[in-house]
């Protein structure tokens, strides 16, 4: 592989969850199309933001591309290795070692009965890195100091830490196997504002230091603009727009992206009052029975007949700026 190749390539990824009824003989009565045919790449060393409202499939996309959920269809390669073709444990381990994840909820993602040492060293045990226990616990202390925690805390349990500190433990665990790629699934949503900035700065420092590549899943659009190089917007299981950060924020093309950005409050009263806001009506429809054609058409102020019937193609309208909308000019 040439180093210029993208680290992660996602092609036509689909993930449907079956909906069943009946207690004993569960019949499939429908499916939730959580992720419905998305394709994108993550370049080496970049941070790609994946944004959208709850239920848009961003978390499912992140988990499916790591192989945590079996995909319904599609292909994913990470550093040239096919994630879904890995049948043998050895191949799967090799992928897992390179690709890690940080979860949203720092309370639910750490085992409450394990010490910090056991939590952070688990990836090393799984991947047989540093088999010597003494070297391993030295490495745990080193990882903790990397994320700004004292090495003396190794024998403590998760409940003894604050939310921000727990998130740091989760980051240390993700770093333990020397990964290339980390999916950050809403890593700061559960944290207070003053702590969010600490964690974001830490993620940036670690990226600089180890050349990490991030997929940063979030709904905080301001933070995504700050941390990401490129941003992808999802709506109801599909990708509607993808572009370089400032291009996307300064010139959003898809009406959904425009509405999403205009809904974000600005911490400046005069500017916020002066702003013309685009308020969407209604709620996100159910992914169980998504609208025909363009999935955004029932809420879209620009929708025409064509939008109801025809699924808009995913096309590149300017270099690196992709959009799926009939109303965007060629």
């Amino acid at each position, binding site marked *: 592989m040439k180093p210029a190749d993208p680290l992660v390539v996602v092609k036509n990824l689909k993930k449907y969850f079956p909906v069943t009824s009946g207690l004993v003989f569960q019949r499939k009565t429908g499916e939730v199309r959580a992720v419905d045919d998305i394709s994108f790449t993550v370049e080496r060393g970049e941070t790609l933001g994946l944004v959208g*409202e*709850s239920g848009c499939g961003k978390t499912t996309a992140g988990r499916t591309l790591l192989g945590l959920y079996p995909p319904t269809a599609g292909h994913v390669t990470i550093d040239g290795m096919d994630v879904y073709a890995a049948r043998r444990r050895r191949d799967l381990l090799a992928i897992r070692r390179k690709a890690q994840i940080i979860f949203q909820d720092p309370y639910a993602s750490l085992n409450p009965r394990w010490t910090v040492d056991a939590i952070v060293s688990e990836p090393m045990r799984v991947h047989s890195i540093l088999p010597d226990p003494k070297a391993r616990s030295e490495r745990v202390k080193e990882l903790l100091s990397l994320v700004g925690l004292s090495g003396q805390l190794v024998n403590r349990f998760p409940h003894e830490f*604050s939310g*921000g*500190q727990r998130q740091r433990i989760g980051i240390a665990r993700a770093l333990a196997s020397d990964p290339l790629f980390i999916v950050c699934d809403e890593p700061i949503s559960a944290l*207070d*504002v*003053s*702590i*969010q*900035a*600490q964690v*974001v*700065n830490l993620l*940036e420092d670690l990226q600089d230091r180890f050349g990490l590549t991030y997929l940063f899943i979030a*709904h905080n*659009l*301001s*933070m995504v*603009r*700050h941390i990401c190089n490129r941003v992808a917007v999802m709506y109801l299981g599909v990708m509607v727009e993808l572009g370089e*950060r*400032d291009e996307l*924020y300064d010139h959003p093309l898809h009406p959904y992206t425009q*509405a*999403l*950005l*205009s*809904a*974000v*409050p*600005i*911490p*400046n*009263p*005069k*500017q*916020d*009052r002066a702003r013309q*806001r685009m*308020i*969407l*009506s209604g*709620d*996100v429809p159910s992914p169980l029975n998504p609208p025909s054609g363009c999935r955004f058409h029932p809420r879209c102020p620009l929708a025409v007949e064509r939008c109801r019937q025809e699924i808009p193609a995913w096309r590149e309208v300017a270099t690196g700026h992709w959009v799926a909308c009939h109303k965007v000019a060629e």
Partner: protein
Amino acid sequence: MTMLLQTIDLKTRFHIPEGTVYAVNGVSFHISEGETLAVVGESGCGKSVTMMSILRLLPAPPAEIVSGQALWGNRDLLRLSENEMEQIRGREIAMVFQDPMTSLNPVLTIGRQLTESLRVHLGMGPAEAAQRAVELLEQVGIPDAAHRLGDYPHQYSGGMRQRVMIAMALCCHPSLLIADEPTTALDVTIQAQIVELIKKLRDQLHMAIIWISHDLGVVAGLANRVMVMYAGFVVEEALVDDLYEDPRHPYTLALLAALPRVDRRRDRRLKSIPGAPPNLLVEPRGCPFAPRCEFAMERCRFEIPPLQPVQGTHAVACWVDVTTGGPR
């Protein structure tokens, strides 16, 4: 403008097995008719406990209101009987909570829950209450309101549930609405809908609002006045424009600097606030923010700064003048 509610030196503590939690430490504020006051702070800063204390919604024990007054007209809410309080709660002062799923009863229909306070507080009969409930749902923008009265909470989306909570709060035309993080659990486009709705209703009904939030962004477009809290203290209070343009407390400054902006290109790393909020199990001795403060002086560590006016209605609890970096 007429003063609606004035709280003076409120102190609330919780007695728990681990010791005493100093949750609210001498909070004073007021709100006038038709005004929107935002109370901003991070989790554990005492913003909700302050309002719950005033409405006497905290179970005692473990909670204890150690001192203070909450003047509502000529009555002190902290000294009313439970019966008198029930006449005020929901009728004169209404509340909307953060999580619309847990604050609605899942086994009762929306209509039943919405008509309850109409029947209890206003003594309406079933038909009249149902009629009024439909009007209320229409007022908060629920389409096809008459048919949706018989639905259960799980049949409503998160944004619609919050609209129902607002409709419930509006039932008896309260003069004060206390909204505790009403948009935190909602997506950003739904949050914008709810904020617009609240603004519209405020102007229509001429209602005062206390909006509790951790989000300085939402507050900017909504409030007339903002009160910033930290560790159970009010650290800064100002008209909304003054607070954002000319913040005078190091904590407010730091919070604003820690926020990235959706409308601006990245120009620097985020300025983070080092450390973590203080342990509330320790009785506060000095300024609660001193250990994390870049301006802190010797005095800050052992003397609690009082909330003092700096300019007009702008008040700050800080020994340091942040514009010069020297003592005030």
